[in-house]
């Protein structure tokens, strides 16, 4: 690397058949696990965010309903957006650590062992 700035990784596709890797059960499993988490989660948080935005935009009286003291429904729903963002973040990290990283690491090692000349920098990381 470092000699050819155009290709993301200096034409390395030639020596490895990526379509074959793509068809392996292990890779299909990794892709399934990744997508089955991130797609539903993305749909969920976008729906929840836009539900909140629409309420704030068009249901002022509902949002102004007092809950306790000067805290109203709007303040609570707004703070819940923070809570849900933090919760989804932690959930995803724990899922990725348990379900994605081990499979990705084993695939990566297999590929790097099978074709070290392609994936391991021949200059040994020295630029």
């Amino acid at each position: 690397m470092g000699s050819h700035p155009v290709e993301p990784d200096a034409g390395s596709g030639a020596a490895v058949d990526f379509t074959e890797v793509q068809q392996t059960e292990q890779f299909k499993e990794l892709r399934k696990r990744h997508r089955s988490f991130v797609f539903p989660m993305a749909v969920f948080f976008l729906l929840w965010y836009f539900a909140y935005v629409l309420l704030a935009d068009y249901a002022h009286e509902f949002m102004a309903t007092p809950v306790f003291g000067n805290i109203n429904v709007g303040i609570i729903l707004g703070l819940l957006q923070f809570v849900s963002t933090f919760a989804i973040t932690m959930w995803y990290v724990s899922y990725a650590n348990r379900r994605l990283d081990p499979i990705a690491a084993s695939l990566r090692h297999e590929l790097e062992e099978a074709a070290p000349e392609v994936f391991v920098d021949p200059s040994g990381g020295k630029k």
Partner: protein
Amino acid sequence: MSIITAAGIRVPLQTAEATSVGSPVLNIAIFGLFVAITLVIVLRASRNNKTAADYYAAGRSFTGGQNGTAIAGDYLSAASFLGIVGAIAINGYDGFLYSIGFLVAWLVALLLVAELLRNTGKFTMADVLSFRLKQRPVRIAAAITTLAVCFFYLLAQMAGAGGLVSLLLGINDRLGQSIVITVVGVLMIMYVLIGGMKGTTWVQIIKACLLIAGAFIMTIWVLALHDFNLSTLLGAAIETSGNAAITSPGLQYGVSATTRLDFLSLALALVLGTAALPHVLMRFYTVPTAKEARRSVVWAIWLIGAFYLFTLVLGYGASALIGADRIAAAPGGVNSAAPLLAYELGGSILLGLISAVAFATILAVVAGLTITAAASFAHDIYASVIRKGKVDPDGEVKVARRTVIVIGLLSIVGGIGAQGQNVAFLVALAFAVAASANLPTILYSLFWKKFNTQGAIWSMYGGLGSAILLIALSPVVSGGEKSMIQGADFSIFPLSNPGIVSIPLAFFLGWLGTVLSRTTEDPMKQAEMEVRSLTGVGAEKATDH
């Protein structure tokens, strides 16, 4: 005037002038100290800037924690600090509503973009978008949208610097403000030229720590004055303003059906634009692995989330302790809420610190934008398109450094020219362009197997073109009271945020272009991109020095 120490003891404090708030000399001195410290760090960091990976991606040597802090430093611009505190102080809940979009947006980056992008690209957004499509046209389009977003964002920051000067340093004449904009621009050029991505990153880390620490201290202070009870604080804010509506939505965006739709459009651009901002995307290349990229986003989410919670307290604190009328009447208007609150709480010294942080904020954000734009020009346009890859990395970095100087000079000229103009819409426009021109192509190329070059080209140019055209035909440019061009009216598009039209349009064009195209892309490349993006195989690791 008195300041209250952390222990709650009132200490008398003499202020030089009663009329103007704070001491400009002290503000400048504290800012000077920040510049001196960061310059030393940038100089030390620059010793190892040898290769393109060093210059553009800091040798991929930052940890997730460091990079996450730098992302927060890059993202929390002066607009989000001064602007959101001021918006909450004056418009109450609607200001808070604005900040939530800025935070939730990070989930798009976390779940869909950051790791996959780190695994497939090298230096720029165009690396990822052109991975499996036709290099030349896609790279050119991606570089153009990158430069457009950086340009709008940069101009807004530099013009904002002028306003900040009059507010914090008491310099009101045009010449004085122009000199300060020039100083900010020259400093920024030095940071980026000498320090490259490493130096820029350290400036952002230091600035993020100062900004978040400053906001945290003020938050605790405001809460301490209100029994650490949010309800009491809201009560005090309602009492000062005499308007119970400030704790519920509607004051700003609820005025008419158009403003409501406008807010919906803005919310769409904020939540989908963040993960497609080129200067944010480029930060993911400064870490060694996808896992560190994930950690970066996690750190950024915690820091940015905490910061926006602080701004909620600070905004209502300013509303309670100072009052919307005094804020609106002060020089700088809405933007003066946070500085006035700092002065109210901690006198000249806290004001000086907060002012210096605000300046540091502009400097750090501008530096991040400039290195992104320079990298995109040198790596995507010069090396890949003009020289067709026949250039050594040293030559590429040389071009990048020259581009930094050109962009720096352009932004100084633009900043001076935009003084006094109402350019606040430019930040929202940058988000709208990122969400329309970049995000559809990023998502399609990562997740949709059939996606092809024609789809990418239609989506990127269609998104960019429609966002800019709609803004040009909107009331922010002509036909309104606060329009950029007075005395003319060609505003046929009623909203000031184009996102609600341009974002769905760009997604649609990406699909349409793909299904109408007769050429199919290389399935090998698609397989390679998918395998690389999910496994991280062959992704460039950190370089040892």
